[in-house]
């Protein structure tokens, strides 16, 4: 009797979890179904399945260009943020000065502020600086939005790092900068990997800021997808979404393998 009850409880819990997962992931499932539809309009596959929209993605020039732009932006912004953000996190974790907490909040704020606010602010700021090249503008904007991810995750990693290791490397014969590179970099590698993944993803799917800072010559993928949707109703965007989804999943899985999910989430 009691045993049946526990079994029932376990069953109820399983059902509940499955339902929750289904509801949370329903949009993704629908997008996947739409992308496989053979119908020429954005709809669930009623007449049959096909892979033609995936083929079309790779034939569309209007997608390839923005995809390249987005990749370039995400890669370069992540790389630069990784260097700047690590230096920033090192400075913040190694010193105590008045206004330090304010500075931390300031650096992390792009993560919390609405994209529209940052977009407008950057638009005026870059114009005041006289920067008109739209790729450069976008690059600066993407550094601003990726930096907080790097700083935050690296700060968390540094809080667990024993700086006596750097001292040890120095007494063993490495000059200060080399000692940091020799000891800090391998020990913080997991933080760097997860920081880079989050920064890359934040840059790659950024829409709001690119809307303000970009122009018609430099279009990022998210913007182009919206543009495409406004002129065409075929399921190509669904196919793009699924491709991006799988790209993200694969990169998360790889980093999870490399550094463990816990470090990925908490830094």
């Amino acid at each position, binding site marked *: 009797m009691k045993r049946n009850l526990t079994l029932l409880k376990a069953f109820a819990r399983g059902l509940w979890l499955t339902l929750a997962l289904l509801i949370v992931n329903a949009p993704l499932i629908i997008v996947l179904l739409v992308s496989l539809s053979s119908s020429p309009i954005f709809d669930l596959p009623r007449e049959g399945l096909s892979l033609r929209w995936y083929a079309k993605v790779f034939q569309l020039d209007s997608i390839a260009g923005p995809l390249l732009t987005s990749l370039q932006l995400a890669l370069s912004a992540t790389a630069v943020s990784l260097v700047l953000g690590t230096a920033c996190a090192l400075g913040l974790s190694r010193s105590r000065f008045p206004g330090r907490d304010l500075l931390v909040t300031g650096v992390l704020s792009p993560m919390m502020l609405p994209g529209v606010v940052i977009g407008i602010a950057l638009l005026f700021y870059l114009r005041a600086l006289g920067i008109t090249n739209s790729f450069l503008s976008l690059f600066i904007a993407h550094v601003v939005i990726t930096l907080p991810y790097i700083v935050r995750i690296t700060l968390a990693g540094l809080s667990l790092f024993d700086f006596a*290791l750097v001292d*040890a490397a120095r007494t*063993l014969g490495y000059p200060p900068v080399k000692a940091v590179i020799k000891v800090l970099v391998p020990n913080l590698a997991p933080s760097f990997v997860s920081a880079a993944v989050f920064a890359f993803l934040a840059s790659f799917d950024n829409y709001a800021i690119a809307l303000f800072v970009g122009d018609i010559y430099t279009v990022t993928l998210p913007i182009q997808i919206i543009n495409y949707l406004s002129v065409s109703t075929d399921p190509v965007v669904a196919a793009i979404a699924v491709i991006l989804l799988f790209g993200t999943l694969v990169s998360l899985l790889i980093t999870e393998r490399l550094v463990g999910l816990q470090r990925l989430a908490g830094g």
Partner: protein
Amino acid sequence: MLDTVAKLQGVSSIMQPQPIDRAGGQTSEAFLKLEGITRRIEQQTILDDVSLSVEEGQFISLLGPSGCGKTTLLRVASGLAPCDSGTVRLAGMDITGVPAHKRNMGVVFQNYALFPHLSVAENVAFGLKAQRRDRAAIPSIVAECLAMVQLAGFGDRRISSLSGGQQQRVAVARALAVRPKLVLLDEPFSALDRQLREVMQIELRRLLRSVNMTVIFVTHDQDEALVMSDRIAVMNRGRIEDYSDPASIYSRPKSLFAFDFVGLSTRMAARVVAADGDMLTLDTKYGSVRAKGRFYPGTSVIVGVRPESIGPAGDKSDAAGEDRNRLKLWLTDIVFQGSKRHLHFAAQESDRLVAEVNSAAINMFEPDSELSVSWRVQDTLVFPT
């Protein structure tokens, strides 16, 4: 045991300190010389005019309570921290401004600071690589150093898989592998349990002696300092209060702090009532005692006596013809200490009255009774308050 000694002697050839350039003819100068080292952090004086000379091959302990500046002094000596004033001289050369990576000093850190991402062997090889030693020679040096600390065959292990004592040995091997001119150890045993600690103390001292290494050893444990050192520097609040060999530190401490810190002892507040040359007559709450020292009559002082100097009056050490102090005290407690027992007597205010007796003689004493004790006048120490 013999095997270990042979092993130590076997490797000592590669571990000899590098020849020292004594250019300038300053052969009389100490090997390591700290002069007037002062360090301030945010208006707080962490090191206050510290001077310390260490001869080559000597084993020196820095002994002092937590927060007195021991680690800071080591960091200044090793070049990891700057000093606001003062000079550091090594083998006759001023190295005050020389950065840590060019000083070639082996440092064993307070919690070892082993590299968790490297294996045991890679940890030991780390300094050799930094010094761009011949790559082909590194594995054999690493193996020798690991054998020296009895960790032969542990090279491939992860640091996290080692016990505290083993990690401590890896830290020593890593520091010695680069053939440092000097080794600095910051409380290397503080994380070990007492038994292992005592074994490691003897072992480490023998190892470092066998390679004729000059050593500065930081500890806050007085027994450890007494066991291991040629000389002990007693530190208190950023100053060195006493610097002498263990026997002198114990029997003739130069300051009340050094007296109190090294060993639980009898101490009594007293007043100088007469001074005849260097013979003082002092009034305590328990009676009058005499001691050698130079104080003006009327001065308030502290009288100190080591517990083993004090014995029951009339026993065989209380021989005739010796100049002795005698007091009648009220025995309150007898505390078992293994081969010895401590007798505690009723004391007033901040005084403390302790005598040490052999456990064999214990039946002679009864708690809550009066006991006459005596000790030699020459064992009576007097400190300004």
